[in-house]
């Protein structure tokens, strides 16, 4: 752990952090919970010259529901998201996914904005954001803009964030009447990054699936929605749903030390069918 020394800047406001990012350029990295950045620093994979600490900035920690959307501040920790009553009532998929992240220590410190900006393809939160069609609010300290989750995550640790931008909040649609959700991931040990993961939302009416959203993670360079699976589910009875999920065409799994590409593809299909079953059961309960 002989890491390269760096300077430290504490930003009291996110706008100050954006100014610091402009001043220092690529030499700077932002730290919030530090659960991704510090690991990279300790391993020598990141060697920032300046670390800008936003963990003490006021605000950006609320879960608020209004006008059909749940908005969560970017500095909300995973532990808070996993236990927040408003989030649990309005969009339970978020808390279920946040509760699966890493271990209790990661969840104590790690933040929503940090996980999304880090954009690890195996991370839980980018996956559920893609499944939910989330919008991310971004700021450079002078202007704000909105990015769609499906477009924000460009690839492995790569996003649409400009060098001087931060995520301030995330909005997801409130779980609508009759919708059910499912979340499944598989890792060799609890707390490891998932080898494959699936997030599913379905709405059942008159005994058949009428709408669905299906997304998978950890099987490519970013989480993706599986439009062909969503189409094949349309009109299916929940009991027939698994049979309708053919080989997944929308994914490009990568083989690595954790699992071969074929195994990941197999896992992914199994997890998608399980998540569909979970979501269907919850949709039927909700009806």
């Amino acid at each position: 752990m002989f890491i390269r020394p760096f300077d430290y800047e504490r930003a009291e406001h996110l706008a100050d952090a954006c100014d610091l990012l402009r001043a220092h350029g690529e030499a700077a990295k932002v730290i919030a919970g530090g659960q991704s950045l510090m690991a990279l620093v300790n391993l020598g994979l990141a060697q920032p010259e300046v670390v800008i600490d936003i963990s003490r900035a006021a605000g950006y920690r609320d879960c608020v529901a209004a006008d059909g959307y749940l908005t969560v501040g970017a500095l909300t920790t995973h532990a808070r998201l996993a236990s927040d009553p408003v989030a649990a009532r309005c969009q339970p998929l978020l808390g279920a996914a946040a509760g699966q992240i890493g271990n209790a220590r990661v969840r104590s410190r790690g933040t929503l904005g940090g996980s999304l900006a880090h954009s690890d393809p195996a991370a839980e939160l980018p996956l559920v954001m893609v499944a939910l069609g989330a919008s991310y609010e971004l700021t450079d300290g002078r202007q704000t803009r909105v990015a769609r989750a499906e477009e924000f995550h460009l690839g492995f640790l790569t996003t649409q964030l400009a060098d001087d931008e931060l995520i301030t909040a995330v909005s997801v649609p409130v779980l609508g009447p009759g919708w059910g959700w499912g979340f499944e991931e598989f890792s060799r040990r609890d707390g490891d990054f998932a080898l494959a993961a699936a997030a599913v939302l379905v709405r059942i009416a008159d005994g058949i699936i009428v709408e669905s959203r299906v997304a998978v993670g950890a099987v490519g360079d970013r989480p993706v929605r599986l439009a062909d699976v969503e189409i094949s589910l349309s009109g299916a009875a929940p009991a027939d749903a698994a049979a309708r999920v053919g080989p997944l065409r929308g994914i490009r799994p990568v083989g690595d030390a954790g699992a071969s590409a074929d195994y990941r593809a197999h896992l992914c299909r199994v997890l998608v069918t399980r998540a569909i079953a979970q979501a269907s059961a919850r949709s039927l309960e909700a009806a």
Partner: protein
Amino acid sequence: MTATITTTLTVNGRQICKAAPAHLSLLRWLRDVAGVTDPKYGCGEGICGSCTVLLDGEPVSSCLVLAAQADGAAITTASGLLEPDGSLGRLQRAFHVTHAAQCGYCTPGMLMAAAAALAGSQRLSRQEIRARLHGNLCRCTGYGPIVDAIELAQDEAADDRGK
């Protein structure tokens, strides 16, 4: 810009104020600056748990937090579990009784994960205790005696409350 920063932490009830290089993790600050050597460096990635401390009561990997980020916080390490007279605390005694330490490297982290797990009011099953230890690796004991120890400490605490 700050290459050196003064950080004040209350470590096991004792306030410590030290200037140190700003890039030091909480773990290195505790060990190399404050001389509190209970937490150990293991993986540097937040996986192994040997550096676990309580930061304002929450378990954290001290290798993944900058000391500067923790300024003003209360930190508890394994020494903080001792009785006021310096004898072993309940959890430490239980680890001793059940032979829950072998090489001992993971033990300070295990103790803090256990302290965090037992801080709640609900009684934990063996399965729940094991779940709370996800993220703390032991390469010697096979975990059985560690779970025994935490169960024993939990039972003793319940007996005390019943008295």
